[in-house]
């Protein structure tokens, strides 16, 4: 920090010479975010403030914080904060400023929660984050808008286009967003409430962040943006009103606080309000006063906080009602604190007096408040009065007044090093107070030059301006303030009766919990976690979107005519009508009998058979064969699983739900029918001619469907067997280790479990079926068939051995690791594809040719056949792994010791 301060001071001469030092590293130039910094007077002033006080705070904290704490957390956060704060004041790119802005919010969050064991610290931290972080987001929006209006995110450019900005229709929006950022950060009413609770942080943090620096980021923003955004009526109305309210309200509440840091916190709120009010006045003088007061407040408030910390540290309490007479036990600290408090109250010869005088002057001199309209001077005086009152109270209650009541520790002076920072700051209070022009004059001037767009008024920093209205106001404020102080107990009583607790951490937590509760109920309402509900939403969404697309796009051609194409419609033959009737019967019966599960399976298979026959009828033998075999294997799997499902299904859904689902299902059906009819009655242009033409010469097969499968689109087929293998692997992973029992059944005789005729006849059937499988496999490329169907035939034949002889019997004889079989199958298919790399061709490029083994006639061998072998093996592995795993679910049922807990609770 000291190094930073030093380097800032190195650059200071340039700044004093009127140059703005710019420095830039590109970060995201296209999107307006650059690491661009500027050092102008305002920046320099704040840099000195941040770093200077920062050094003192670090020194102070070294003695303040117990050594046992994880101090590194504190220092890292504090340094992070200082960096963020510096970034804010030095940013040339205003997006970058937002970046640093949020860094300070975040580090503030961490520092407030430093003592996280205390619930209040945790909640206060979150509350502060919510308010300042939220304001930062508003600021971000404002910055982005401003950048878009001004055409750049560089402050220099924006400043140059200030007039355009103020004339832009978006100006009010931008202004409000910026002010939201400034007001939340600087704890302006009604966003002030987080600041007093931020006092849960250790005192060095309070001194640094919540009085000297971070809360100044808001008013810094007002200062920084003053040349761009100020000068309008809107600015005046909002900023000065909010500032005034905060000024008075903060001061009033400060008087009521019994907690030392609470008083100081509300006093900070009040002073920030004062600064805001000054910026809001839209006059150069007021702006200069504001900048000046920023400096003064930082100095005296930091010293006050540190003094309060010393008192807390040495007495063990911060409750002013419990202390008193400390002047006698810690006189040095007392003197320092009294001087600082005097500055806070605006006692002459102390720096606070100077800026307050300027404020009163600005209030009186404001063109909007002439003799007739005295509201501003009155407000100023009332605020000043409360400031005097709480300052006096602070001094009196702590250092004088009644003797201390049961304080946890016996107070004594702190170590000298701990007091040193306070001493330095109070020295500054005096130095500025006595020699304003010499001490801060030049700095204030360059800072004011940076803030004020036009000519800077001559800044007369003097202790004595003669007898004038401001002086009178000061006197009045002092008189009333002291009077107020003497009557303070009445106010306390009032406060006890009408405590306004809406802004406490408890309230914040309650609010947060409320939001959580509301969200939870909303989620419960919209997301029932029910699959059925999600499915209803899905199908409804599809329908709505489909109908909408048709409605809006089909308008041009006439809605209904879009559904009917020009092709002539074929006649219905008797067989087709019959098949249609069977299909209808099967499908509807499946629905009707869904609760009698075997029946439902039977009807479903009837339906599937009709579909298969339809495929055959329309010249798709491959499809018919595949569909048929797949269906049977599916049914076997279904039946195997059915064994473990409860006999009586769960309760039926209500009538209204069935009606709803029925309507939805019908609508889906109508939709598919309509689209199908639209398709069937339209001619189309297809790329398939290429496949027909190239299947034989290019793919080496005459069954174009198969050549597409293993060659033109062999990649799809590879994916398809990957899916199959994964399905098998997935169920293997799911079921391994799972044991289930079905509903209790009568123990079966062996003859019933392995019916003898089945067992005996399956044995000759196996080799014969395998021969058939080989036959189907080999002819696939030229005629319907191929690896998939062959695999299913072989798998079914092997499966029958399991059915007939049992798992133990078959597994003993079929020593195959099906997982490995899947790997081998996939491996063969993949290798076939990779093999083409050696010929410099892409994956899965096929080659084919005739081989002439002895005796055998010419036998066409396509590389695609090896691919098909992979398919074949994967299918076998999949089916058998599925079968054996599901069958194995019951294993151990008989050998399990009696009374063993059943996995299956059905």
């Amino acid at each position: 920090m000291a190094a930073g301060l030093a380097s800032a001071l190195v650059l200071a001469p340039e700044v004093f010479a009127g140059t703005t030092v710019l420095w830039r590293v590109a970060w995201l130039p296209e999107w307006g975010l650059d690491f661009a910094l500027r050092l102008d007077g305002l920046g320099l002033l704040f840099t000195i403030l941040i770093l200077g006080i920062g050094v003192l705070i670090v020194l102070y904290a070294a003695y303040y914080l117990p050594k046992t704490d994880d101090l590194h957390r504190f220092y890292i956060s504090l340094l992070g904060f200082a960096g963020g704060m510096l970034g804010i004041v030095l940013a040339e790119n205003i997006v970058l400023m937002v970046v640093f802005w949020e860094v300070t919010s975040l580090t503030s969050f961490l520092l407030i929660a430093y003592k996280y064991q205390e619930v209040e610290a945790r909640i206060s931290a979150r509350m502060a984050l919510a308010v300042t972080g939220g304001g930062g987001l508003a600021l971000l929006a404002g910055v982005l808008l401003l950048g878009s209006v001004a055409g750049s995110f560089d402050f220099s450019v924006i400043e140059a286009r200030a007039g355009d900005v103020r004339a832009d229709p978006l100006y009010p929006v931008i202004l409000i967003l910026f002010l939201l950022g400034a007001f939340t950060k600087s704890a302006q009413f009604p966003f002030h409430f987080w600041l007093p609770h931020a006092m849960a942080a250790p005192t060095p943090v309070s001194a640094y962040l919540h009085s000297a620096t971070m809360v100044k980021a808001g008013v810094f923003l007002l200062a920084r943006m003053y040349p761009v955004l100020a000068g309008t009526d809107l600015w005046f109305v909002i900023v000065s009103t909010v500032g005034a309210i905060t000024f008075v309200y903060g001061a009033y509440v400060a008087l009521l606080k019994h907690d030392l840091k609470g008083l100081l916190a509300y006093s900070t709120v009040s002073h920030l309000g004062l600064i805001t009010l000054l910026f809001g006045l839209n006059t150069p003088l007021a702006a200069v006063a504001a900048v000046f007061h920023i400096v003064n407040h930082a100095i005296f408030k930091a010293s006050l906080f540190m003094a309060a910390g010393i008192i807390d540290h040495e007495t063990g309490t911060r409750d002013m009602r419990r202390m008193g007479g400390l002047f006698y036990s810690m006189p040095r600290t007392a003197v320092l604190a009294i001087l600082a408090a005097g500055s806070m109250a605006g006692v002459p010869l102390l720096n606070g007096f100077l800026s307050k005088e300027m404020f009163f002057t600005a209030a009186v001199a404001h063109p909007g408040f002439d003799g007739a309209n005295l509201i501003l001077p009155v407000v100023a005086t009332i605020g000043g009065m409360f400031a005097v009152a709480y300052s006096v109270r602070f001094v009196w209650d702590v250092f004088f007044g009644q003797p201390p009541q049961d304080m946890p520790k016996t107070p004594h002076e702190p170590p000298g090093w701990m007091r040193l920072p306070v001493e330095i700051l109070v020295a500054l209070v005096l130095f500025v107070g006595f020699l304003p022009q010499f001490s801060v004059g030049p700095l204030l001037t360059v800072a004011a030059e940076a803030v004020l767009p036009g000519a800077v008024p001559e800044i007369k920093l003097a202790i004595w301006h003669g007898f004038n209205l401001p002086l009178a106001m000061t006197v009045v404020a002092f008189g009333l303030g002291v009077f107020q102080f003497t009557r303070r107990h009445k106010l306390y009583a009032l406060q006890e009766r009408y405590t306004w607790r809406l802004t406490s951490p408890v309230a914040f937590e309650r609010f947060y919990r409320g939001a959580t509760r509301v969200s939870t109920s909303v989620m419960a309402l919209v997301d029932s976690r029910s699959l059925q509900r999600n499915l209803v939403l899905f199908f409804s969404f599809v329908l709505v979107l489909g109908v909408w697309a048709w409605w809006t796009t089909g308008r041009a051609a006439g809605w209904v005519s879009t559904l009917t194409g020009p092709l002539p419609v074929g006649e219905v033959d008797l067989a087709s009508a019959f098949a249609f009737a069977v299909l209808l019967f099967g499908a509807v019966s499946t629905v009707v009998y869904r609760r009698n599960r075997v029946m439902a399976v039977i009807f479903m298979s009837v339906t599937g058979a009709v579909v298969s026959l339809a495929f055959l009828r329309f010249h798709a033998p491959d499809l018919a064969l595949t569909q048929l075999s797949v269906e049977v294997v599916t049914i076997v799997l279904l039946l195997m699983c059915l064994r473990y499902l409860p006999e009586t299904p769960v309760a039926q859904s209500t009538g209204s739900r069935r009606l709803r689902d029925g309507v939805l299902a019908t609508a889906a059906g109508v939709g598919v029918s309509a689209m199908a009819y639209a398709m069937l009655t339209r001619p189309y242009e297809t790329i398939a001619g290429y496949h027909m033409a190239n299947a034989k010469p290019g793919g080496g097969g005459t069954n174009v469907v198969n050549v597409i499968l293993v060659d033109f689109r062999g990649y799809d087929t590879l994916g398809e067997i990957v899916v199959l293998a994964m399905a098998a692997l997935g169920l293997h992973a799911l079921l391994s280790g799972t044991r289930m029992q079905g509903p209790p059944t009568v123990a079966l005789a062996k003859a019933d479990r392995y019916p003898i005729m089945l067992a005996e006849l399956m044995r000759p059937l196996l080799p014969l079926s395998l021969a058939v499988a080989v036959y189907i496999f080999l002819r696939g490329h030229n005629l319907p068939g191929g690896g998939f169907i062959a695999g299913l035939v072989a798998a079914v034949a092997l499966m029958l051995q399991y059915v007939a002889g049992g798992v133990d019997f078959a597994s003993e004889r079929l020593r195959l690791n099906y997982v490995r079989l899947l790997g081998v199958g996939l491996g063969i298919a993949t290798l076939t594809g990779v093999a083409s790399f050696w010929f410099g061709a892409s994956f899965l490029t096929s080659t084919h040719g005739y081989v002439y083994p002895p005796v055998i006639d010419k036998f066409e061998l396509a590389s695609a056949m090896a691919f098909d072998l992979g398919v074949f093996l994967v299918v076998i592995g999949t089916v058998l792994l599925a079968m054996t795993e599901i069958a194995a679910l019951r294993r151990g049922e008989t050998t399990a010791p009696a009374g063993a807990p059943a996995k299956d609770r059905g």
Partner: protein
Amino acid sequence: MTLREWLVPQPILTLAIAALWALLAGDVSGGTLLLGLTLGLLIPVFTSQFWPGRPRTFRVGAALRLMFVVVYDIIVANVAVARIVLGNVQGIKSKFVDVPLDTDDPYVATILASIITLTPGTLSIDIDMDKRVAHIHGLDVPDQSLLIDEIKTRYEAPLKEIFGC
């Protein structure tokens, strides 16, 4: 295990596969036969585990004779069944009958049971190798012992001859 047993564990099966292959391929060219025989040799090697290891005697002549008998019976008796089905179905005397078995080989018993099922009028419900009976169901059984006799002489005796037991 001799080399022949190892190479051709199931000669009948090998031939059956080769024949099936020829049937499926639809020709009897050299290549087809060779491929069929190759499969006939390879598949039994792969599936031999499923066979309880008993390459048994098999009398082809007797088998062919039985086949003709069975085919004849199937055709003729189906006409008889047609008469029953289309006639007065309420008057039929269907009943369960136990046929005692002479063989203790479940394989032979199964073939017998299959034949019983395929020939009209009778249907094998179950085989009980412990009690050595076949439970059958007759569609119209006026005389139970006549039925048992017919089964034993017409089918069981030739089967025992074929398999030499």
